[in-house]
């Protein structure tokens, strides 16, 4: 609790914006997320100048509200401090924010190379190879044992491919096996199926629900937009099948989300797709296309179109935000969950196992093995296996990112994409300008959600915010 004589301060790089009649405040080095203040709270925040004590602020506040007591004022400033938009005393060392060892291990099990689709941007070279049962069981067993050894508390296993639902019986066996092992090891485990959605029959959807397996379905647009890039081997589009699959998931009440890959071919349809998903109350995430050696056509769009289309989509969400937060899925690699120095878990807390038991750093580099499940310690193999040179290059080391306000939420974007397009890692992401243009828009969406659900009478607020906000 703060005291009368404390001098509150705001964090460097705090971002503020006006949303409706509220003030959005976002401290990018906080784990607390976005904060919204009504006009009274906003007024008090603006009195922070790094010199005034709480007792000085009380004197000013009393001129407008003679009844205010010191205890009330302290309570409000305590809220500022606990939501990490202000601090008193010495600022905690930023390094501490990033020194926490990750406790959540992501695992990508590439069950099969087989797929019933031939999506135009896919990074997988299709063969008939799949992970055999013994190998898959052995991989899971070793992953859980090594995760335990390295003190991970939770594992998320994503079944991928190819199309992993082609191997559903094996997937379910692995779910059962993995749950037993995790229980013995006292580690939380969850399973996710990454699917193109074509095979999601009523029966399969209901099985996934029963087995408590979560699902991510790829849907890249409505009708012809989806069909322009997610096609069967015979060239026909898959939209109708995926739509039916999604209906089945909804009917079976399976927790799922939709993953959207944005390319030059579907970018203009993103607002309509957003409308479609919002109407059905389906959570979703937008990912930007990443070029890879298997793609035979030009799928990168221009930044201007991407920004315009996403702004249009964001406006739809802003107008009627769902109760859950979409913020971490609206802008590619940008994540507001907590400040981070690396854009992904590669080399830190992310294990990828190929169908032949080889390990790779990232699913986008399936050809580049860094070890195998026969290695003595899979976590050690993962830690050694980052392809970034130098391995420990963080966003703080990236010259163009050093002074950026947003560096701990985009963390420089996908390092592989940056390297592939620009030939080195120590350079800004090809999507840097897009991120910078859209991060404020995404923040506004989250602020609107907080206002709508956290302040149910917000419609009654007519008074404007204070005009001067010196932050």
């Amino acid at each position: 609790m703060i005291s009368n004589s404390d001098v509150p301060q705001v964090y460097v790089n705090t971002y503020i914006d006006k949303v409706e009649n509220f003030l959005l405040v976002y401290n990018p080095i906080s784990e607390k997320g976005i904060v919204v203040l009504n006009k009274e709270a906003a007024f008090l925040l603006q009195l922070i100048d790094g010199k005034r004590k709480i007792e000085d602020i009380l004197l000013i506040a009393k001129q407008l509200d003679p009844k205010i007591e010191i205890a009330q004022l302290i309570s409000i400033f305590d809220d500022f401090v606990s939501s990490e938009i202000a601090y008193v005393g010495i600022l905690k060392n930023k390094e501490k924010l990033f020194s926490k060892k990750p406790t959540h291990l992501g695992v990508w099990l590439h069950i099969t190379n087989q797929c019933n689709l031939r999506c135009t941007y896919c990074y997988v070279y299709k063969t008939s190879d799949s992970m055999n049962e013994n190998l898959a069981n052995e991989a899971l067993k070793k992953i859980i044992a090594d995760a335990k050894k390295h003190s991970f508390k939770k594992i998320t296993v994503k079944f991928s491919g190819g199309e992993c639902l082609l191997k559903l019986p094996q997937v379910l066996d692995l779910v059962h096996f993995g749950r037993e092992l995790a229980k013995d090891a006292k580690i939380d485990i969850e399973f996710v199926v990454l699917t193109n959605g074509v095979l999601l029959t009523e029966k399969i959807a209901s099985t996934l629900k029963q087995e408590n397996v979560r699902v991510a379905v790829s849907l890249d647009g409505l009708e012809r937009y989806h069909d322009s890039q997610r096609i069967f081997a015979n060239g026909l589009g898959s939209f109708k099948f995926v739509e039916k699959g999604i209906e089945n998931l909804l009917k079976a009440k399976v927790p799922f989300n939709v993953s959207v890959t944005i390319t030059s071919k579907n970018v203009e349809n993103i607002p309509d797709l957003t409308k479609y998903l919002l109407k059905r109350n389906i959570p979703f995430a937008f990912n930007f296309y990443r070029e890879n050696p298997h793609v035979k056509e030009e799928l990168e769009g221009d930044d201007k179109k991407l920004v315009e289309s996403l702004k249009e989509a964001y406006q739809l969400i802003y107008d009627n935000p769902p109760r859950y937060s979409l913020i971490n899925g609206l802008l590619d690699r940008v994540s507001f969950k907590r400040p981070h120095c690396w854009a992904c878990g590669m080399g830190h807390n992310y294990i990828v196992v190929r169908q032949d038991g080889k390990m790779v750093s990232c699913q986008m580099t399936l050809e580049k093995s860094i070890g195998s499940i026969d290695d003595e310690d899979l976590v050690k193999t993962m830690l050694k296996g980052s392809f970034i040179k130098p391995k420990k290059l963080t966003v703080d080391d990236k010259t163009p990112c050093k002074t950026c306000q947003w560096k701990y939420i985009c963390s420089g974007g996908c390092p592989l994409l940056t390297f592939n397009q620009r030939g080195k890692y120590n350079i800004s992401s090809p999507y840097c300008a897009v991120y910078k243009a859209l991060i404020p828009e995404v923040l506004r969406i989250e602020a609107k959600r907080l206002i709508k659900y956290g302040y149910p009478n917000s419609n009654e607020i007519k008074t404007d915010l204070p005009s001067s906000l010196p932050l």
Partner: protein
Amino acid sequence: MSFKNAKVITDETVKQVVKISCECDCACQMNNDCACEAYNDCACAQV
């Protein structure tokens, strides 16, 4: 202006205001205390 009306709204506020019965048995960090009434109306459905 009455400062007793000052409000600081965060995601935690939303979770407290919107009540709360999770049917999705999700593995979300909210430990089944998430802001969903419906199976899919939940941030934890995002994977």
